[in-house]
């Protein structure tokens, strides 16, 4: 896995680009921008479901969600650039493993939300509270994304082999 990612980075020129003096910080800035867009759109949507800013019509607010998905897509792309430029800093790092797990939980949570909880939310009146199922999904989403940010910072702050690891 590490060899494959490394060779992708080398052959595509990503590795060389990322290790110029401005490559890494520029892509990091885009990654932070994407996460702000994600939290701004998905996070405010979750907060509304949890009862913050009641009065904002949920069906209309949902039009912001695609912009949050755009932020997510930007972060998948920029995140890929980091990983192929230093695969061993990520693959063996428990913070990165937890980050991916939280992203998977958030993804499953999205599927469950749209399958079971979205229809009554969309139809709800402007000032109405969200049903309990939707509130639960919103809380799971917020906790996951905030956890993703915490793990993202942990990745670069504690690097393997000196990484922070609670099962080692």
């Amino acid at each position: 896995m590490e060899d494959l990612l490394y060779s992708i980075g080398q052959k595509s020129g990503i590795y060389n680009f990322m290790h110029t003096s401005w490559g890494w910080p520029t892509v990091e800035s885009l990654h932070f921008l994407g996460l702000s867009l994600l939290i701004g759109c998905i996070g405010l949507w979750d907060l509304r479901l949890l009862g913050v800013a009641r009065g904002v019509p949920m069906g209309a607010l949902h039009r912001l969600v695609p912009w949050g998905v755009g932020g997510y897509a930007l972060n998948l792309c920029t995140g890929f650039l980091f990983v192929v430029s230093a695969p061993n800093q990520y693959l063996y790092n428990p913070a990165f493993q937890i980050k991916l797990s939280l992203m998977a939980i958030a993804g499953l949570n999205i599927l469950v939300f749209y399958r079971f909880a979205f229809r009554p939310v969309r139809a709800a009146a402007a000032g109405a509270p969200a049903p309990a199922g939707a509130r639960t999904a919103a809380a799971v989403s917020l906790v996951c994304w905030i956890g993703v940010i915490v793990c993202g910072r942990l990745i670069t702050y504690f690097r393997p082999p000196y990484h922070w690891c609670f099962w080692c």
Partner: protein
Amino acid sequence: MIDFLIWLEETRPSTWMRESGGAFFSSLVFHSIGMAFVAGIHVVTDLRILGVAPGVPRSLMRRYLPALWASLAVVTVSGLALLLAYPAKALTNPVFYFKLAAIAAALWIMRALMRGVLGDSRHDAAPAPGKEKALAAASLVLWVAVITSGRFLAYTAKVMLASHLLY
């Protein structure tokens, strides 16, 4: 200036920020989460003024103001803590002053928008006037500049501590 920085970085709160292990890292984490909400709420409000999610009455974006104030408090406290840990690192770097100026301009714009196009539900029916759309677009550019300069701070610093300048 240098004497002051050397004195500041040798105070107990400053050394504690650097040496306690968790203090610096947790400030960094809170600064990141706070940034996501501060920049996120501003970006979403700007997008709304520019015409995204037209079914959301603009004046109702003000309901997110308490969340914005709370996140501004988080970034300010964590930012001051990070500054206290390595005062010379930021204060000797022009990028830091650029970041502060961009934040000030962005907050001033949001204050103007809150008093204008976001301030009165009677304005909600019509699209935002061109001048306020221009302000919202400027705000988007400023937040990109704040985030980018914040990130570049870590790469453009010339010194970590003022005492290093003595040798």
